[in-house]
């Protein structure tokens, strides 16, 4: 058991989740999850609503106990330790600031519980508030602060006792885009300074990609993929990840040829497309299988005479500021999107456009594409 009163470690603790499952009645919220996070690492849990992110976080914080499995923090078994004895910081989605205490009272709470001497408390509260740039707000009530300021108080409160690990459950979910981006940077900087391990729940993939050392994509109570943002985006290991992280085109077809890790698919109407076989499923794909190819809109380009021999009919084009999104329709009827740097001559609706991509920029997965 950690000694709460004297823990002054500013270095992070590792997290080891092994074979953890949790059900609520018939609902399997978390299914046999294993996850190892190094000390000081920033790992995001990314997934759609109901995928079990909060449930996993609650078990790490100690508010729920797993039905099976072990949770270790800093090498110590924490699976069934009371939440108040875990010494883990937590930022709740709705901040959960105590409305009947001042900002300073909120930040001081953890130190009071640890019986830290009065003047030490004052000093550390002052430091924590300075760190989140709220030095002058100590005497205010939480309801006298803006959403962004409340969020910063929540961060100060969760970090003032120097926890080796901090859990955040969609801490920026209630804020507007601009403020969110600003606070993402602040949280990231704070984490570097404190050296704490951070487990960060979000369903905003952009947030997960920009902030994290590694991202765990969750679906249906499982971790579909745990890897660096770059690898997640460029080498997704399942259709779900390809579809959920970033924007992608999914084409379902039958394998007609495999060689050198590149599969050729017949997607109907005589169209052939090529992509790299997903690493994880390499052994599982054979000629004749139904598979799904994923290609990012920005990896496809408008070019004639490509190996793909694919054309789209332009339906719409959307100017986004930094590029142009062309929405087209394949001969099979499927929608296909391409992002390009603004071309010299923008295509018009109804134009036939040749489409191509490098085979290694597309990924082929076993199975049909999920219905959108």
């Amino acid at each position, binding site marked *: 058991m950690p000694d709460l009163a004297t823990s002054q470690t500013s270095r992070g603790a590792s997290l080891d989740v092994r074979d953890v499952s949790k059900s609520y009645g018939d609902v399997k919220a978390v299914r046999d999850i294993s996850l190892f996070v190094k000390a000081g690492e920033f790992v995001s849990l990314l997934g759609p609503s109901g995928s079990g992110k909060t449930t996993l976080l609650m078990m790490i914080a100690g508010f729920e106990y797993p039905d099976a499995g072990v949770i270790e923090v800093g090498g110590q078994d924490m699976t069934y330790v009371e939440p108040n004895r875990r010494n883990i910081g937590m930022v709740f989605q*709705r901040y959960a600031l*105590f409305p009947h205490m001042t900002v300073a009272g909120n930040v001081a709470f953890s130190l009071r*519980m640890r019986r830290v001497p009065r003047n030490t408390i004052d000093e550390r509260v002052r430091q924590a508030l300075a760190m989140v740039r709220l030095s002058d707000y100590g005497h205010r009530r939480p309801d006298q602060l803006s959403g962004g300021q409340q969020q910063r108080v929540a961060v100060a409160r969760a970090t003032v006792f120097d926890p080796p690990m901090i859990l955040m459950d969609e801490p920026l979910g209630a804020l507007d885009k601009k403020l969110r981006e600003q606070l993402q940077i602040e949280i990231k900087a704070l984490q570097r300074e404190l050296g704490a391990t951070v487990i960060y729940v979000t369903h905003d993939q952009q947030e997960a990609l920009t902030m994290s050392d590694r991202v765990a994509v969750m679906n249906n109570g499982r971790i579909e993929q745990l890897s660096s943002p770059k690898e997640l985006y460029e080498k997704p290991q399942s259709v779900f990840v390809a579809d959920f992280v970033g924007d992608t085109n999914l084409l379902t077809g039958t394998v007609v040829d495999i060689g050198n890790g590149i599969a050729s698919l017949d997607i109907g109407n005589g169209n052939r497309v090529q992509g790299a076989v997903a690493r994880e499923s390499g052994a599982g794909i054979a000629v004749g299988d139904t598979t799904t190819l994923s290609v990012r809109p920005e990896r496809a380009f408008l070019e004639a005479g490509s190996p793909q021999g694919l054309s789209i009919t332009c339906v719409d084009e959307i100017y986004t500021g930094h590029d142009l999104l062309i929405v087209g329709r394949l001969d099979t009827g499927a929608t296909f999107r391409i992002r390009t740097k603004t071309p010299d001559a923008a295509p018009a609706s109804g134009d036939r456009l040749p489409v191509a991509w490098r085979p290694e920029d597309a990924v082929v997965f076993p199975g049909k594409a999920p219905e959108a």
Partner: protein
Amino acid sequence: MSTNSSALGRTPAFLMLLPLIAVLCFAVFWPVANLLGRSFFAPDFTLQYYETIVSEPLYWRVFIRTFWISALCCILCLLIGFPIAYAMARTSAWRALLIAACVLGPLWTSILVRSYAWIFLLQRNGVVNDLLIDMGLIETRLRMLYTEGAVLVAMTHVLLPFMILPIFSTIRAIPTDLERSARNLGAGRFRAFLTITLPLSLPGVSAGVLFVFILAIGFYITPALVGGPRTLMIGTLIAQQITELLNWPLAGAISLLLLAVSIATALIFQRALSVGRIVGND
């Protein structure tokens, strides 16, 4: 412009309220004012009825007994009601419903029925005496009916819902994340309750105590039936003055004192409430 149109918009609403206001005036305010007014005239202006009350120890005893029993009833309701309200607010929906049905069910039963039920239980040949004798705990039957204890128990039973409801709704409105947050920051179960849930539930507690106390000091049916003539309370006293002694002015004087005490209590609690908001602040 805008003031004009909103004033126009408000007038018909006010007109529609007029019949209701008229009915209230004739059926409630006028008789009450009449009763209270009579206490000052005999037939000229006089304070003689108030002098009678002050100089007669019987009335003093009734007043003190009423406050004493009402205060105890408040405390009992709070001690029993708070844990129930807390459990209701923090358990699953269908369990909360079950508790509510058990505890609040009495609200849909007539007070008369509930009071007679207590008579049935507590009387000399009643269920409680039978039980105690069968279990060999007592030899002779106890006199439980027509005691202050009986009044207290019956009143607590009748008034309990008025304590539970406001506390329940206040606790239910406290996000569970606050308690969790306190636990996460190092507070044990009990300290999380003491530092977070309890202070935040004070407005509900205060409303419940106020409800129960004011209802209790003016309570009539239950004390009259369960307490009998020996455990007279203010409500019973007023009724007695009117129905048996036809002493309307004296009844009016007692009523006015009761009203004054009720208003004073409400004001004090309002103060206590705003003080309660400051408590727990650092």
